[in-house]
């Protein structure tokens, strides 16, 4: 049982990293970024690129990959999403779908579909770690949990305490009012996209080192999308319970039910949530009506 608990926390952390991207972008721009999973993949490939360029220097490679991903998020907003202002939100969502397809195709063109493992290039190992209670996780499992915790603490501190974070919340809530108060909401929206890129990249970097890297990883983004909806699409606080719930159902369905259920369990959770509380665990009802 402790192993199932440990695995649940690890899987939930990965989902939380990805789901944060959905929530940040949605809160700021009301766009469902369906390319979030592919932004995760992109982060993994940025790491591979950086690791190949500076082999044996993991800190530099990871920092480079994270910054490149944040820059990619910024550019996606600046070049693709901002021009959609004034058009129906639906059009912007379609842009993100197209973006996901293009990212995948670009990755295949450059790196082919071969499975990659950046870990040896970084000169790192991923030994197992025994936890109290007998559960075993990998080192990168622990790093995934740590990264998710650090990201959430950082985001909460940033959004609650920093002037920029407060402005970001204001712009997300009432962009027009924020603009009238002199807040550069375009910059804040771009920052949200950059942060989403960063969160996705963290997930991609950790997963690529822990499991594998290939162009199809973006499919995990769909499960994280279910997490974001279960938690409440406009609620960062909802991401953690949403991720824990979805991960627990997924892990327990393998242990006690049919392993095949694992793949669909996030969507079963989503369906159940939509039937009972369509705005999610911590989402706001008004937001759902706006959607």
């Amino acid at each position: 049982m402790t192993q199932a608990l440990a695995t649940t926390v690890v899987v939930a952390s990965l989902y939380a990293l990805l789901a944060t991207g959905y929530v940040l972008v949605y809160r700021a721009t009301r766009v469902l970024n369906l390319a979030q999973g592919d932004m995760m993949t992109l982060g993994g490939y940025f790491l591979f690129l950086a690791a190949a360029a500076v082999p044996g220097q993991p800190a530099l490679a990871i920092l480079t990959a994270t910054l490149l991903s944040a820059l990619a998020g910024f550019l996606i907003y600046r070049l693709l999403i901002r021009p959609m202002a004034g058009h129906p939100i639906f059009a912007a969502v379609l842009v993100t779908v197209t973006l996901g397809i293009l990212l995948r195709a670009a990755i295949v063109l450059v790196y082919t579909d071969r499975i990659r493992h950046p870990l040896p290039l970084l000169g790192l190992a991923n030994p197992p770690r025994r936890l109290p209670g007998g559960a075993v996780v990998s080192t990168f499992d622990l790093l995934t949990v740590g990264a998710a915790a650090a990201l959430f603490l950082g985001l909460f501190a940033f959004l609650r305490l920093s002037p920029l974070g407060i402005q970001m919340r204001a712009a997300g809530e009432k962009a027009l009012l924020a603009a009238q108060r002199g807040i550069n909401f375009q910059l804040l929206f771009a920052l949200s996209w950059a942060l989403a890129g960063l969160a996705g990249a963290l997930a991609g970097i950790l997963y690529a080192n822990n499991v594998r890297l290939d162009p199809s990883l973006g499919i995990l983004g769909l499960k994280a999308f279910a997490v974001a909806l279960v938690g409440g699409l406009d609620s960062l606080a909802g991401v953690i319970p949403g991720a824990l719930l979805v991960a627990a159902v997924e892990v327990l369905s393998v242990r006690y039910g049919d392993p095949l259920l694992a793949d669909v369990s996030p969507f079963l959770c989503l369906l159940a949530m939509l039937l009972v509380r369509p705005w999610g665990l911590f989402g706001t009802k008004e937001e759902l009506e706006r959607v």
Partner: protein
Amino acid sequence: MVRRALTLLAALLVVTVTPALAQYRIGMSAAITGPASSTYAPTYEAYKAYFKRVNDAGGINGQKVEITYEDDRGEPQRAAANAKKLAEGSILMVNASTSATYKPFMTESESEKLPLLFGGGVCPREAFPPANPLIFCSTSFGSKWDSRFALGFIKEQAAGKKVKVGFAAQDIPLSRIELEFAEQLAKEMGLEAIPVVVVPGNTPDFTPFAQKLKDAGADWVLSWALWHVEVGVFEALQRLGWQGSYLLYGHQQTQDELARLKAPNLYAFGGNTLFMENLPIHTEITNLVKGQTTHPAHYMAEGWVSAMVLEAGLKKCGWPCPKDKLATALAGVSVDTRGLRGGPIEWTADNHYRKNTYYKVYRWDPSKNGIAPVGGWTRLEIK
């Protein structure tokens, strides 16, 4: 003026059409992109490199081999469109893709009476005795036979000791059916079989599935799935401190991955010789594909053998080579694979898989600090 224009047009048509007809025209559909492409795209690349060499050397029987390539991404809808398109004017179609694409190709082959060669994807039932006259398969792996060999190997390694065997399948029909067959066969062979654990290919963490196998007390685990699932379960088992042995089907990635994992309890079986054996044919392929492919040379074995078989069939067919004559020619080929496989590929009128199939097992040998074969080739007679 009009007459001159018509004459010019007619001349142009002759120039355009004649060379295209005076060629062996083949159509190939492969999962060049898409989730399964890491398994199938190398076959496409091997074909391109192989027939470039053939054509550069003057072709076969004085005729060039013109291959039209289409990407089906491993999707049946795309495959159906490709089958229709490729059937037009071709004397043979090649499928190097997932089993989901087989049906439209077999339907088209049947309706057009067009020979169909599976090269790279798992061999369909129709290639085995009694074979469909139009269906051929050169792929090294074949359902049921792979399990027969794998379980025989496990039994041999157990050396009379009672062992429990677990099975890690992927949530695709082919993998599940194969390992359900293996589970049944294991019982018949006197091995203790643990029910098949089916693993979704998109799982974020293989640990729960590995835990299930470990908790069930598996001494051996057999996996026959796409590579990332096969290896994902093994790595999770290893992390959990499992002490058993793991046997998986060795896809093109085997050589890279055995060297990456350096795990002596990981065994990979397959029908192709690994390039680390450095046979003359391996050097030849490596030199030939240099700069021509996006995959490394040691991914080319599967496609290379398939291309060798096709070349042999076309040679035997002669010129002209209509599709019915080619089907008859293919049914009698015997191809020396020059060490890429354990023996020749021999097809007969009712066996389009091969008279004998060969398997070899590799693993990481810590004493040699390298990959080493576990014994030699094992031959199974296909009846």
